[in-house]
């Protein structure tokens, strides 16, 4: 096992940044977000997880799909941007690492591969950071996630008092460590602090089966009363992946782009002619929870929540998914 001293980490990031775009949590206006490392930012690896999930690095908020030119009756696609950059994400927590696996299920399986996502995903190495302290809103262990060890990553970091233990998990991860060269030292018998213990405990056992019988239940009316119908929960959720496709015209050229969308919005399902199968916030909030806790498990065999607690942290009216899980299990059918 090797380790790196705290003050040398920026040097390592700099070294990695020579061959790739390095994204790492940094301070921004009192919160933490993944930002490209340019040697100047203030690293924010010690505290709670980032405000925004890192999903936009694989699935940008807005992404050009292709450019076109229109001339009278003629039109042609002039360019399909192809993402060639290499990326290294440093400081990814176990919950977010799981979210990458869930996104992979959506974008890479079931008959079609989303090329835009695939390119970014395949060009990216992930360096995880073990959590030693949980935020009050964390409940990753509910989904069998180990805050001390992330799934599907290339390197696992663990914080020490004066630095980080680094363990290569994949060959690509080993290459990253090789690049670090003399910055690393033998860890000896340095033992990292134990993994965090999330304070919010929730038992998801049986919740899918219960929800399967609850589509028409009056519970959804009650739970949605206070919902504002905003998209904060979906946009901050590392597993929400809905998008819209639209075009932007500039004279006789233009481009098709896709951008994040939210099932919490009225426009999302509104059809030509005005019919909307999810006319009110009741149906929309129900869809959000069923998607996370019933539909996704039915389709992909996994919960689409990783217990990061971002929605709970930022929801303006305290719609709390852990409470929903508990209440769903308690309501009488």
């Amino acid at each position: 096992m090797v380790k790196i001293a705290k003050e040398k980490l920026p040097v390592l990031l700099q070294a990695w940044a020579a061959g790739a775009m390095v994204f790492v949590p940094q301070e921004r206006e009192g919160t933490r977000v993944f930002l490209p490392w340019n040697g100047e930012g203030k690293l924010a690896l010690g505290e709670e997880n980032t405000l925004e999930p890192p999903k936009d690095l694989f699935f940008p908020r807005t992404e050009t799909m292709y450019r076109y030119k229109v001339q009278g009756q003629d039109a042609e696609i002039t360019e399909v941007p192809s993402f060639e950059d290499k990326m290294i994400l440093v400081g990814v927590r176990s919950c977010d690492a799981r979210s990458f696996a869930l996104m992979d299920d959506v974008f890479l399986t079931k008959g079609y591969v989303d090329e835009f996502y695939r390119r970014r995903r395949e060009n990216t190495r992930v360096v995880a950071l073990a959590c030693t302290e949980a935020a009050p809103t964390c409940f990753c262990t509910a989904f069998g996630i180990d805050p001390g060890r992330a799934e599907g990553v290339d390197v696992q970091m663990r914080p020490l008092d004066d630095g980080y233990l680094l363990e290569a998990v994949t060959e690509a991860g080993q290459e990253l460590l090789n690049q670090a060269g003399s910055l690393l030292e033998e860890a000896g018998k340095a033992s990292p602090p134990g993994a965090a213990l999330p304070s919010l405990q929730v038992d998801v056992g049986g919740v899918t089966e219960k929800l399967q019988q609850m589509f028409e239940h009056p519970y959804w009316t009650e739970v949605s009363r206070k919902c504002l119908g905003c998209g904060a929960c979906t946009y901050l959720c590392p597993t929400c992946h809905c998008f819209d496709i639209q075009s932007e015209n500039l004279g006789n050229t233009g481009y098709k782009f896709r951008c994040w969308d939210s099932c919490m919005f009225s426009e999302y399902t509104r059809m030509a002619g005005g019919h909307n199968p999810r006319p009110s916030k009741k149906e929309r909030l129900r869809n959000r929870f069923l998607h996370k806790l019933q539909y996704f498990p039915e389709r992909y065999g996994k919960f689409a929540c990783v217990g990061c607690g971002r929605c709970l942290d930022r929801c303006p009216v305290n719609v709390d998914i852990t409470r929903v899980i508990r209440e769903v299990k308690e309501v009488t059918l």
Partner: protein
Amino acid sequence: MAVEARVNPLVPMEGRIVKIIEETPDVKTFHVTTEKGKPFTPMPGQLAMLSLFEVGEAMFSITSQGPEHLEIAIKRVGMLTEALHEAEPGQTVGIRGPYGNGFPLDMFYGKDILFIAGGIGLAPVRSLINYCIEHREKFGHLWIIYGARSPADLCFKQDLFENWPRVENCRVDVTVDKGDEGWKGHEGFVPAFVEKLNPSPEGKVAVTCGPPIMIKFVLQSLEKLGFRDDQIVTTLEMRMKCGIGKCGRCNLGSRYVCLDGPVFTLAQLKEMPNEY
């Protein structure tokens, strides 16, 4: 365009409208082809994403196909469909597909088939009717019941009044909500017409497509006539963007209508959340 575009399912092929047929005052059928010939070869009931780059993209049923082209019948309802109705032959379009499950042909082999459609809803059903006609020996009796608001609103008139009635062992019944001076046929709504014609469920499979309100009442009529849920097939419409089960918006429970639909048996529909 580069090879990349071809393998990226979200990037359309460049196609061209080569022929436009005016079906009704607000429905036109478009024949679409590409430089390399037919864009792809869909099965009955499958879908295509058709676009005018600068306007928009939407999902349509492929109502028929020839060796070199696809046929898509489009009702004018909004921005894209409006722009398409203004297009003339030679117009470049984007097209991608084929999408969706299509009709479950296995379910129809050797059976009598009852087709019940309203308005533009005949478009997807027509792909199946034509398939049955082309493979006539594999199917039993074909019975087409179709309705529209007025005689002018009847789509595919040539099929309805010339081609299909000539097919062996095939019956066509047409109704309109309200006739005009020249109309000698039946007047009345489709569901009532179906009940009046009183088809027996024996050995039959029923396929229905049309406006949601028509489907709702036709399903009730079929139930009255004794059709079981697994004898009834219908197609669903949801708002769609990606067409490949990624963008999330067409979900009905854990299924995506673009990928796992749009064709479902009534038995399947009853298992799914009532949210369409």
